[in-house]
């Protein structure tokens, strides 16, 4: 019954969010349209995204003295609905900027609508698009290569010479493998295996036996969420003693719950917000990350335990910075403002967010650098900064 309650709560949350938006419709000058998955299989990501956005609204409700109105729609984890939501947000609500969503295909669907209607979109997931083909979209998420580079650097520091790879049979497994293959030769590391498994597989004993037989110094895993725990469990069962590395797809409380003791000391990259309290005082994102934690706690009455709500927060910060500059050129709610806003976002310089410091340039989806990643270690079910 708890699940039912959860769904009702989510429904109420969605209704409340929309109601808030409608209530302030006449007072607002700037409009942000957010489409996220408050229901459906992606809702475990979509709900934190929406909560993070509420925290952002509370943190910065005005830009240059003008109120910002947030309109939230639920896309039910479905790309078609996400595209329809984007169209509705632009045509009916006349938003100045689109934000979303919890799934990459759905985010791409939104970005296509944004391009048609000449409305900028700040993606909250690593969207896979050619920025030259769609110059209206950018994302606050970290590119996979940036994260995997950090893992490879760490392997080099730990004197790893050979590494075995095991990952999903899908696009995520390919992305991680390709990034690893690109980074490894430069660090003098040899990738000795490319084993794959499906998300629904019950066992990876066969694949792991093959890896263990090759005796690599370390194993890199390319999974995400709870299915990503499978190689860790199988490697432990076969008594593998080398280091096991993960990537940011595994930074998830459900992964920690399922992997249990088998994940002890596993190293993986993530945005610095996950370990904000443990960062050194001089770290550029520490202050804003701490602020974010506080405001999130105040708005949602619960602490953050995920990276997703922080992406929403960063998206808002990037938007706020760009909007304050764009407002000097045009009036919000007009087509000129949307163009000015797009140009302003693409000339963002050193905006400090919780995940990293953002500098966008035309022709590039991503705006973060090395400051947007840290390596964390799983220690007794807690993420610990591994400097």
């Amino acid at each position: 019954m708890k699940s039912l309650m959860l769904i009702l709560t989510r429904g109420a949350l969605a209704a409340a969010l929309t109601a808030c938006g409608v209530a302030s419709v006449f007072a607002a000058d700037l409009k942000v349209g957010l489409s996220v998955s408050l229901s459906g299989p992606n809702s475990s990501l979509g709900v934190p995204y929406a909560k993070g956005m509420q925290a952002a609204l509370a943190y910065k409700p005005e830009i240059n003295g003008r109120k910002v109105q947030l309109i939230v729609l639920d896309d039910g984890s479905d790309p078609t609905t996400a595209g329809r939501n984007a169209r509705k947000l632009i045509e009916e609500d006349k938003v100045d900027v689109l934000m979303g969503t919890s799934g990459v295909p759905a985010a791409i669907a939104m970005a296509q609508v944004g391009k048609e209607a000449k409305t900028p979109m700040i993606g909250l997931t690593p969207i896979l698009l050619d920025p030259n083909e769609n110059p209206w979209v950018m994302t606050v998420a970290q590119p996979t290569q940036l994260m995997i580079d950090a893992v490879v650097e760490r392997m080099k520091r730990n004197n790893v010479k050979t590494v075995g790879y095991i990952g999903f049979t899908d696009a995520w497994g390919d992305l991680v493998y390709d990034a690893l293959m690109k980074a490894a030769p430069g660090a003098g590391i040899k990738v000795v295996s490319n084993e794959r498994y499906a998300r629904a597989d019950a066992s990876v004993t066969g694949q792991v036996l093959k890896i263990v037989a090759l005796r690599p110094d370390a194993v890199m895993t390319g999974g995400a969420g709870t299915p990503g725990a499978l190689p860790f469990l199988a490697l432990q069962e076969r008594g593998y003693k080398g280091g096991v590395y993960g990537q940011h797809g595994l930074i998830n409380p459900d992964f920690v719950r399922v992997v249990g003791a088998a994940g002890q000391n596993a190293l993986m990259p993530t945005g610095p917000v996950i370990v904000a309290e443990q960062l050194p005082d001089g770290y550029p994102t520490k202050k804003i990350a701490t602020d974010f934690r506080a405001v999130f706690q105040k708005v949602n009455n619960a602490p953050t335990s995920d990276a997703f709500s922080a992406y929403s927060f960063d998206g808002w910060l990037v938007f706020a910075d760009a909007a304050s500059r764009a407002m000097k050129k045009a009036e919000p709610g007009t087509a000129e403002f949307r163009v000015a806003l797009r140009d302003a976002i693409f000339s963002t310089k050193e905006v400090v967010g919780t995940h990293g410091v953002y500098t966008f340039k035309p022709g590039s989806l991503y705006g973060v650098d090395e400051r947007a990643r840290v390596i964390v270690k799983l220690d007794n079910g807690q993420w610990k900064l591994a400097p």
Partner: protein
Amino acid sequence: MTWDVALILITDGLANGAVYLLAGLGLVLIFSVTRVVFVPFGDIAAFAALSLAAFETGRVPATIGMVAVLAALALATEIGSLLRRGEGSRIPKAVLMWGVLPAIPCVLAWLAARPGVPVAVHIAVAVLLVVPIAPLLARVVFQPIADASVLVLLIVSLALHFLLSGLGLLFFGPEGSRTTPLTSAVFTLGGGFTVSGQVVLMVGAAIVLSGLFFLVFERTVAGKALRATAVNRVGARLVGIRPVRTALLAYGCASLLAGLIGVLIAPVTTMYYDSGFIIGLKAFVAAIIGGLVSYPMTAVGALAVGVVESFASFWSGAMKDVIVFSLLIPVLMLRSFMVTHSEEEEDEVDQ
């Protein structure tokens, strides 16, 4: 490949094969008695596993609500059909059978969700909780269309699977769960080769349960009635066996098997709301090897599927399922060449 690796793969394969064996037995049992390819079988196993996981994390599994709603639906269906036939006097018995009986595991499960209940009770209750699911589904969905063609029954069965896995997603969420191992024992054989207690438990359960099945079919009246219905439905009816009752018995047994599978594999694999389907599919390959009628051949097929799957994942992880399901092609070709065309039993029922 060295002998150690081969041995580990064989053990892993046999452990998986044991699960497919139990699932295959359930599928063959239901198919031979009712001609339904019971696709939701695996979903019921997943429900058992996820309910157990819910107990372990101190939550009340939503399965309770589902069983209660199903029972209410079944009761309404039964009372409706009794009233239509003018047999209103049998309503109290129907209430007992369809209302009270399924409510017992629900109440037990609700009590077991309190803190401080031992793990053994959780396991027993998780199994008991899913036992009414298949008979209730059968009463609501399959009994009214019992004489339809095999294809119609298969389509309905597939639709039920999607319904159940959707409900599973609603109840348990998209992320998977693992339960604490039933045993942490490790047996060391010669040459440093070890077998975990969990694997021994799985293989042992498969052996014991198939033994029990054999005894039930050979020695009990209910078992003989099941066999008689499987051999010839009309003939069984002529000698006084009620096909509706044997069908419910078959569904109940299969549901119990599914529950046992669920709690047996929950500690060794991460169970998701939709994990049951792939288990059911592989058990189906085993059942096809047994021609959907032969229990011993299904057992052999299940072990073969398990071992092939295990070796395939060593040789080519990405192609594993392709290799396993390709097994169907030679088996079906061989069967169609060797087996003489048997009489079409559904015709007898329709007339």
